[in-house]
């Protein structure tokens, strides 16, 4: 049987969801013959490949790079999964949205100048440092998302339950505390 092509992506988030993914421990070994990780921050692949079956996306859409990559993922992936609260709700990264549109400058000012202990400078390099979006968005406000895996981060057993259902050929369906935010 052909292995399921799985990707994991890290947009605007803290990487906690990926840490939790690694907490799957031996389950990762158990499923190694059923899946093939074709793209991930923990694998050295430069370009998001074509024909991905399932993509777990961590993080909110915060900047232009996130936006572009997300559209590419959508075009090249069968099933998108919002992986963790940042992807599902925009969570902590979106707290800057409260400062209204046009908040990016003041946010950068606060982070890189006012709170800097050494060398206060706002990083700017066209083509290298991506521009922040006016509003941080959850994935489903940008593209169609098939499944949602909430949690900050989603505990390993929740990820396991989800992947287990997917690999068993079922429609993944989480319920009860498995859907808890935070």
């Amino acid at each position, binding site marked *: 049987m052909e292995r399921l092509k799985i990707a994991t992506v890290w947009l605007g988030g803290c990487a906690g969801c990926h840490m939790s993914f690694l907490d799957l421990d031996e389950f990762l070994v158990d499923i190694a013959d059923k899946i093939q990780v074709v793209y991930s921050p923990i694998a050295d692949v430069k370009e998001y490949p074509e024909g991905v079956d399932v993509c777990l996306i961590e993080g909110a859409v915060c900047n232009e790079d996130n936006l572009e990559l997300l559209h590419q993922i959508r075009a090249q992936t069968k099933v998108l999964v919002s992986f963790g609260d940042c992807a599902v709700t925009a969570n902590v990264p*979106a*707290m800057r*949205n409260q400062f209204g549109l046009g908040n990016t400058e003041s946010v950068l000012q606060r982070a890189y100048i006012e709170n800097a202990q050494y060398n206060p400078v706002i990083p700017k390099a066209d083509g290298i440092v991506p521009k922040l979006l006016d509003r941080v968005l959850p994935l*489903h406000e940008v593209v169609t998302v098939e499944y949602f895996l909430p949690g900050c981060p989603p505990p390993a057993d929740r990820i396991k339950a989800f992947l287990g259902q997917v690999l068993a050929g079922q429609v993944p369906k989480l*319920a*009860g505390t498995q*859907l808890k*935010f935070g």
Partner: protein
Amino acid sequence: MAAKTLTIDGRQITAEEGETILQAATEAGIKIPTLCHLEGVYDVGACRLCLVEVKGTPKLLPACTLKVAEGMEVSTDTERLRKYRRMTLEMLFAERNHVCAVCVANGHCELQTLAYSQGMEHVRYEYTFPKWNVDNTHRLFGMDHNRCILCTRCVRVCWHIEGAGTKNVAGRGGKSQIITDLNQPWGCSESCTECGKCVMSCPTGALFQKGSTVGESERDRNKLEFIVNAREKKQWNA
């Protein structure tokens, strides 16, 4: 008191006259989701989560204020009601900034619990990301308007259990907010008795004990019931 016989979710139930559907259902072990309801204070029927279907009535009615009647046929868990409940919860999450991950009430929040128990895995409505303040001026307590769902439990306990009338709702519509006295910093309130009942009553992380960090805000609602029973019924069973 006369007894009334009625049906809830297909089960025959006997309830006392004057009881609400919510009370009758709870006694029968049927759980109806609630959010603005709080044992010990009167009900306002505002959150609309406890809406039920009553045979012969086109309108959905709140179980918390609806009195039992002979022969009533009530459904509390239809597909339609589940859909509306989920939508109501989604609206609440989209209305203010409920960031569970960094909330004092994480894990002990009624809003959060309802969301997962009603199967809300994401919010389909656009988040509005309004700007709300946190009032940290009180020496013991804080109020984070970002987490407030305007259930008015705090207002009701402050008026009708404590009797101080420190808290109230100001403004209206989406701009409504819970205020202290003349909308002044809580720390400057002259009427606040610092009894902490409002904090005990809050279903979310909007009202909290200072110094508590993420997930630490567990509330002892039994205290409220204890006080009400003591004051009104003269029964001190802790």
